[in-house]
């Protein structure tokens, strides 16, 4: 069971306190109606599937409840870092 550092609680806690929440840094378009079908499709469905560093969102759902961002290596399943939502991509 992985230990995950919650940047809000500033503690490493067991994985079972957390929920995965998909790829990070995909902002909802400010005006979805202005997007073409292709652009909306890209926003809605197209995701990275890297071998290695992956930027993803987690929620400390059974803790402080906050969503945050993380960089995890998909090969080793190790977290490189976690940081607060709204902070720049690491």
């Amino acid at each position, binding site marked *: *069971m*992985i*230990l995950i550092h919650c940047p809000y609680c500033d503690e490493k806690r067991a*994985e079972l306190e957390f*929920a995965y*929440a998909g790829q990070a840094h995909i*902002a*909802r378009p400010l*005006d*979805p*109606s202005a*997007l073409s*079908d292709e652009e*909306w*499709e890209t926003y*809605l469905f197209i995701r990275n599937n890297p071998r290695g560093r992956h930027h993803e*969102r987690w*929620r400390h*759902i059974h803790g402080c*409840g*906050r*969503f945050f961002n993380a960089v995890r290596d998909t090969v*080793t*399943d*190790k977290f490189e870092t976690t940081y607060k*939502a*709204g902070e720049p991509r690491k």
Partner: protein
Amino acid sequence: MTGYRLPTGGRINRAAQVTFSFDGSSFVGFEGDTLASALLASGVQLFGRSFKYHRPRGLVGSGSEEPNALISVSRGPGRFTPNLRATNVDLYQGMEATSQNRWPSLKFDFGAINDRLGMFFPAGFYNKTFMWPRSFWEKLYEPAIRRMAGLGQAPTEVDPDHYAATYAHCDVLIIGAGPAGIDAALEAAATNKRIILIDEQDELGGGALSDPALWPWLDRSLKALAASPNVTVLTRTTAFGYFHDNFIGAVERLTDHLASMPDGPREKLWRIRATEVILAQGAIERPLVFDGNDTPGVMLASAAKVFALRYGVAVGQSVALMASHDSGWNDAFALAGAGVGIAAIIDVRDIVDEALLAKANALGIEVRLGHSVIGVRGRLGVKGITVARNDGTAASDITCDALLMAGGWTPTVHLWSHSKGSLAWREDLGAFVPDVPNENVRCVGACAGTWNFGAGVVVDVLPTPKDPARLKAFVDFQNDVTAKDIKLAVREGFRSIEHIKRYTTNGMATDQGKTSNLNGLQIASTALNKPVTDIGLTTFRPPYTPQTFGALAGHAKGALFQPTRKTNIDSWAEEQGAVFELVAQWRRARYFPKAGEDMLAAVNRECRMVRSSVGIFDASTLGKIEVVGPDAAEFLNRMYTNPWKALEPGRCRYGLLLKEDGFITDDGVSARLAPDRFHLTTTTGGAARVLNLMEDYLQTEWPDLNLWLTSTSEHYAVIALQGPNARKVLEPLVEGIDLSAEAFPHMAIREGTICGIPTRLFRVSFTGELGYEINVPSAYGRTLWERIMAEGARYDITPYGTETMHVLRAEKGFIIVGQDTDGTVTPFDAGLDWAVGKKKADFVGKRSLARPDIVAPGRKQLVGLLTDDPSIVLEEGAQIVADPNQPVPMKMIGHVTSSYWSETLGRSIAMALVEGGHSKMGQDIFVPMPGKTHVAKVSSMVFYDAEGARLNV
């Protein structure tokens, strides 16, 4: 037959005799014996039958690596444990053990016919033969194979034992308490670190237990550890898995070795989080591959040494050694020192260490260098061997009653591999050793590939003049895989060891190839003429040895398997004899049968009473979210499909929630209590999902909005009071709220008190009748329920359950998200266009409602169905076709989502998702069912009171 108890030696307690039975016969061993050592001492050589060919098998090893001697132990009803390795079973007084995979008896086994037919059972036999026809697989092949090629029987009774679980934390976790592990523990003990030392055996010592010269050191070391308050020692504890971040799973066996069962758990699951892990798991000796190497009495040299020096048991009167490694010679010398006769030492090498030769000479042991065993005589036990020069000449017989194999050593890297540490190939060892760690872990001792066992050569199959096609040279004893099978797999085109493994099943038995993986790899390497490193290594996965389901389940069984959520009113329903159903994790009353009523009769009565007078329903399980803050209305306006900003305080609105893909994910009626406060409701099963979705948008998309979301699902008990007499029942109980139709219309909310309890009183209806949903603090739920029941008695107030709720809502065409929708249904598909704010610039999912696939014709749409025969209640989930006469397989155009007998209408009603359903109004569709195809007309989903007259009273 040949094993016997040596007159002296070993760590057994010769003063304490232990009587036990094996296959119904009585035997005597000593305290400190394993089942294997005690049987061996009694002359038993035959321990089981092999998996596929039912060949007679004896002991190969002396511990967890043992592939053959799988036995069952029975301790009474529900306490039957199959597939235990006899080498790991600590003997106790009265033990009842049985062999497995034989019928009718171990010595005469009908399934052994498979062995005579062996040429018909090559690698991939199951894949190739039992392919067709499909129905034969279920009815014929699989049951026959299961009966013939089985492991032990699974117990049928409920396990009466219980199992404990605990978490532990330490600075240093040491796994394996042989000399290397004990040294590591002593070193760490001198610091102030917290240390846990675990070992799977009944006593610490590992290899030192079979080396009497080390016993004084062992005694001193164990005393030192016992005196260290910072060291926790766990014996009979198997570290079965190494998980992320130095999280180790281990099972401690607490009672299986005891003659009488104490109170307390049978096993304890340890979940250990360690700062540093030290693996000291040792190494496993490798068998040699030659014709007849599975004959009972052919075993690992190291195992023979363990039996002799730890348990005081000779594996034979006259024992031969087949070696490719020095360690076997030293084991043979140790046996000779214990008084065991050594018939000969055969070594595949032409040259060995002079010191070994000198010692063999001094002991008068015959030595054959550059020779190999090419055959074994005896079927149920070794009677002798045939050896030849490696060039095939000079074959001669040697009489012996046991044959030891010394094929070198395989470091035990299982846990290291679980932790995703990398491995490096050591050509000199012919083995993989730990390389780069992936966690804070290191290996010490033999599992790191460092040992003082001497040198050796790696041989895949011993040289033989015999026809390779006729050899029965086993690689994987438990799964009956021979060298020939692996070569066949290579000939048939398999190149990767992962594929060869699956095709031949090499290494896939319960021992996970502890003795077979490396030999299989060497044979494939030779056959492919490629280095081992190009073929790869199979992946080790937890568990290291099989563990009981009980240990893994722990307390999570029966009522504790998952929480059962109960409302404050639940106890009343139980006292009334309600029939319950689980909805999400909530236990909900499904119906309240009176004497003699079945479900249909009860539901019909409940429906009649709601429509004609008044019914009462526990709706406490509804999800509830309190939305508070200056931007609450703005937030809800963005989340829901319909407009929220203009909703006046005191009014309610039906909210439809989409995901960004445009599909319905939840719905519910919500109320505005104040400009900055809303009381949302969600479906029972959707509460957590909806809160998570809303939190996601609030925290990450619109963090500028000022509001709070709070789950209040369990804070309120909710009593739904529905029916034309609902207002009359409420009136005498409510204070501070004008219940008149003018002052308190449908879809409104008022705050006041009821029976003195503060309430949020909704006027809403999921039945189509005049209705109220009374929210009070949870703790008052049952009290209020009983007050209302008393007040409603004169109207024959009738409690109803979820089944009646479903029927009544279906009569009105109200959907249940998750039943009538399935994650692919848009508001338009569901006929809920009216709930979508056309003028809203944006809401979650709005853009998707204009996606090409969403606006394309032919989507499945929700419609009503009325069967031509009104007495037919369609099956929910039944498929719908447009033309019942088309050939099979028919094109299915939809399915029935909800279907009930409507007592109100005196006929059946149904809802269905049908392709282009909205344009099929009045048309016939067909529902083929076994024996009959039902005809139904597509209709509106509102079957009752379409104009809503019953609501506006």
